């Protein structure tokens, strides 16, 4: 009996998997350029207002940022275990890894929420009145802080949804995790969101500390 995971127009699971993975990599390529708009703008302004960016970077909350980075690194590790387990046929273990990954993602979101709350209490939102930093570049830094982290957060939320989808769809038929390319593709997406954060961390939280 052909697997339910096999979809039109494919003839076999391996071919389908390779193509789905290629599709996901292409999508991640577009995501690089999507975030690239942020990175490019950030770089241009950091070049034009170097001192202001360092001063503004000091105002970010490095505790939240660092803990969140660790959380995401660990989540990526667990996700990687999950997708390897699914491939090896260790479905019970895989179905343990996915919820852990998603929960770590939610921990990240919760901490990010606290951090946003702190930022707003300090009026670190450059569009509103009372923004405390006088330098022109500081407003730009914080504008990019908000856009970049919010866009990243949206991506992470989508990622959490995708991980739960794995869990739900494999509930009755764990073999699906192996047949379908979903586990591998979801894992790629999750790691990518993590990669973006690694760069955001270096660009947002680390400047101006010395």
């Amino acid at each position, binding site marked *: 009996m052909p697997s339910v995971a096999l979809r039109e127009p494919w003839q076999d699971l391996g071919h389908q998997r390779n193509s789905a993975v290629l599709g996901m990599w292409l999508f991640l390529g577009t995501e690089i350029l999507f975030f690239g708009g942020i990175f490019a703008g950030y770089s241009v302004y950091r070049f034009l207002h170097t001192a202001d960016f360092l001063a503004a970077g000091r105002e970010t909350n490095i505790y939240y940022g660092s803990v969140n980075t660790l959380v995401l690194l660990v989540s990526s*590790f667990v996700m990687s275990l999950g997708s390897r387990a699914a491939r090896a046929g260790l479905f019970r273990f895989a179905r343990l890894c996915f919820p852990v990954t998603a929960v770590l993602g939610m921990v990240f979101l919760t901490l990010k929420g606290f951090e946003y709350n702190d930022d707003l209490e300090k009026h670190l939102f450059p569009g509103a009145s009372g923004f405390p930093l006088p330098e022109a570049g500081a407003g730009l830094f914080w504008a990019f802080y908000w856009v970049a982290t919010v866009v990243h957060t949206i991506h992470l939320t989508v990622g959490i949804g995708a991980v739960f989808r794995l869990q739900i769809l494999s509930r009755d038929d764990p073999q699906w995790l192996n047949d379908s390319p979903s586990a591998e593709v979801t894992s790629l997406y999750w790691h990518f969101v993590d990669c973006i954060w690694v760069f955001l961390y270096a660009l947002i939280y680390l400047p101006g500390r010395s």
Partner: protein
Amino acid sequence: MTPEERHRIIAIARAPSLVLLGLVLLFGANLGLSFAALGRFNLVANLLIAAAMVALIALFFMELIRSSAIHRLAAVVGIFWLMFFFVLGFADYLTR
């Protein structure tokens, strides 16, 4: 969980665990270095370490190390194209 299962789990977890260890060490280095007064080299160091972390994730977690050429190509093409923007965009900003 049978012992056989446990062995297999340990087997698949070995490589990712090492990678995680590397990632955490690099993360610590990045955080620590950012407090050292290196001038403009702070940025260089931060970005190089971040790039190393991303390379670890891409190679081992995203398994580019065992991917086919076309997957690797798709993975780097976005970065390449972003470089085009940086090179030509900064051709303006550096000479304005």
